[in-house]
């Protein structure tokens, strides 16, 4: 009987420098409020800025209309809570998408060749709009 050590690898993400402003990844160990604050900071970054005299500073990121929040597996419940928080408590428009991400598992052996397995993990993606929802008229 061979003894294997399971090593889970990160999903194969593409790197883009701009993603650091628009995409927030949530781990199961990310504290809820720290995630919420990071998202709010990113939203704030794309907000209109004004000079001291009140002139608007031209926004170079006009194409960005939402912040992406992603979490896989165990972190899905945390992402769901974030969706509820931003939608109901803060009044942002939130779209929710489900996804499947393929990840690589490595079964490491001391001497023999390692075994690689693909595994599919469910993933939740939020699109949080930069603009808040219009306050609904009470009827």
């Amino acid at each position, binding site marked *: 009987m061979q003894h294997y050590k399971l090593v889970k690898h990160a999903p*194969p*993400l593409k*790197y883009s*420098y701009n993603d650091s402003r628009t995409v927030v990844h949530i781990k199961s160990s990310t504290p809820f409020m720290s995630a919420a604050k990071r998202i709010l900071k990113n939203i704030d970054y794309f907000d209109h800025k004004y000079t001291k005299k009140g002139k608007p500073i031209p926004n170079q990121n006009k194409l960005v209309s939402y912040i992406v929040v992603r979490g896989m597996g165990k972190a899905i419940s945390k992402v769901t809570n974030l969706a509820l928080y931003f939608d109901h408590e803060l009044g942002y428009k939130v779209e929710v998408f489900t996804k499947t991400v393929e990840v*690589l598992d490595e079964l490491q052996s001391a*001497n*023999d*060749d390692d075994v690689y397995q*693909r595994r599919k993990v469910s993933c939740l993606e939020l699109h949080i709009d930069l603009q808040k929802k219009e306050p609904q008229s009470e009827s």
Partner: protein
Amino acid sequence: MADFNQRRAKLYNSRLIRAEVADPAFTAAQDPVTGVSAKLDVEKFVQSREFEIKEFELSKLRSRYSSATRVFQSLPRSLRRRTASHNVRRVPKRLRTRALREMGLLMKEPDGNETKGVDKQGRPSKAKHSRGRELYRLRRQEKLLRYAARLKLSGHLVDGERVNVRNVKMRTKLKELRKRIQELSQRVEPPLNNVCGSVDWTGINERATIDKVSTIRYITRQREFKWLPTHVWHAKRAHMVKRWGWNIAYEPTMKCFRQTSRQSRTKGCIGFDTSFYTTIVLKGDGLGEIVGTLTDGKALGKKYAQNGRIWEGFIQVDDELLCHSMVWWIKNGKECMLRIHPSVYDHVMDYLLSKKDSIEVQDCRYSIGSVTVTGPQALCSLASIIHPSSQTVASQLFGQLSTLNSSAIPLGSAFSFFADDPRLWPRPTKPHAKPSDALESIIQVQSGAGVEVSTMEALFSVEGRVASYAGQPSLKQLGRRRTPDLVGRPIPKADSDPSVPIALVKMQCGFVLLAPWHWVLPFWHQLAHTPHFAIGGLKQLAQLRFEKGELSFADCAFTRAGFVEGLAKAEELEARWAKRPKSKRVNYDKLDEPGSPFGCDWRYLQLLRQKLKQVPPVEDYTGTEFTITQERVIKNKQDVFEAIEDQKEKDRLITALGKPVFTQLPIKLVGLSEQPDTASSQLSVVAVKFSMVNRGHPADNARIYTIPEESYLRWLEEAGKRTILGKTVPVGLECPGKEYLIGYATSATFNLAAGKGTGVGLIDAEVAYDLHAKNRRTFVVRNVASTACYLAEWTLVAV
């Protein structure tokens, strides 16, 4: 122009003190309705004066600040230059006019310039004497002339043999000279195959030396401490240290604690010139046995020796752990590459050269260089400067994976292929990968498809490296080939342009690019131009390991090199402490620190843990006793501390006699799998990482205590306390006594990755085993010279 006027106006306004011209207190004229004549309105009068006083104060501030800032101060931090800030050419073009005006240079004054050392146009004025290369040339000339004159006077021949000039006839003199010239002209030297002066300095079955250099100018500075390929680049941007026979960047000149942490985790990348790591190529039939001894048989498995996977771990000689290193088999059990830390170079080389009957040792420490790049963008940055020479399976796989976040590539992934001269491209070029199944490519790379055998053979052989230097163009030659119609495009590759064998390996410290020594600099220059790139030195390498909760070089106090490093650091701290006036330094004598307060005192810990075991269950305080050999009999706990002092005094005497105190180190690293061996004279320790449970900001050399049995529950209770808002509260418990000391934190500080204080250290294995058995995961940490101590949660670090 309007802008200029606006700014002038601003400056004018800043000097102006506003006063209320139309004073409402006086202007109330005769009331037309009531006919009451004007009188002083006291309230309005007071308001007006208040306004004026405020304005006066404000104007003082305004005029101070309006002239206090200079334009170069508004640049991003990395572009700011404090030195030579009078030189407008150091300021970006768009800000030059403003910078000139700030220096008063555009104002047409009779003598023109106001700033020292600058002419009217803001250029540095002509130097009064030669500088730089010119100065060097003149000095050299002077020296040579002096030398020649002295030779002429004393009658030396060129090679130094002393001759009495009076006894030598002219004919003999000429004969001797002709003979010498003939000798020199017939000396066979391997011909250079390039104009750059790139030579391969491999030592075959001997230590490598730099015996022939193209730039003689710098050789005197490298007599003891050699330069890395990127030395000149780094020396301008970083503080350098002389260690292990190298001149190495210690830390960048610009503060970068936060930047390093961010670039390594969230965006961008950090580059290190790690050419100081020694690469040794081993060949021969007896290789299996030798590599087996070095790696304790671990690197001999089928997946390493036959299938070419990379082994990373601690190597050992004579059962003594040496350093974290890497073994990579090049040819199926016949040839392998060993990469070690320079601090153990002599030790390993001695061992390997003693076995040279059965293997061939190629010392490539001056012939294979490396660059380490870490951070999420590392692979993208490397891919934008590495251009494969031909389309092969390996280079295609590299291209497919090149857009991925570096964390997605598993450890031990390796690429190796021939690449073009990176200087052909005017700037780093972002890779465009075709969409493909990334996981499939990763699996292929892990099974060895990313490695080309021919490249590996070229990179790890003298002939291959020499061939890569053939026709290496100089920057001047490349500049001539870069015609105006090629702006923004690469120079077409000529037939004479060489291909460079390179290897790219994902290791624990990041991506390591291995290249022939004289190709490292071209790659580095291009890499430094990639966006979001930062540099790091030895300190940053240690910081990255610390943030991950791993042991850096200096944390490995169980290795001889790491132990010496700790002693050196402690000595330096002590010297700095001793330099301060007595009233300004901490009085450590009164604090009664366990062990030296300047470092981790492993000798103290070893003696303490071993002598505490000798304390009898019923302590006896009747008086001190000595054995015949003048050893203190341990009858109570106090005797333990006295005995430690005795032993340390003995150590001091031995050191004073010039003998080494330690034939073996006081500590030895073990695992937690079985109960440690207590009979050994070395203290068994385990490596742990810890993070603070509640509050606390641990620092380097912090002391680690186990919690006394009686106060264990109180500690847990206190540490768990929170205010009603969820804030932590200070623990009001006293620090355990010296007898509870179990280890030291080798590095500890606030960890930006964890958001709280964390550290790594070594603790007594016996206590760790005991705690582990009881499932207790906490101990107490106290900083040096502090009475506050905090609860920390520990986990084992696998070494």
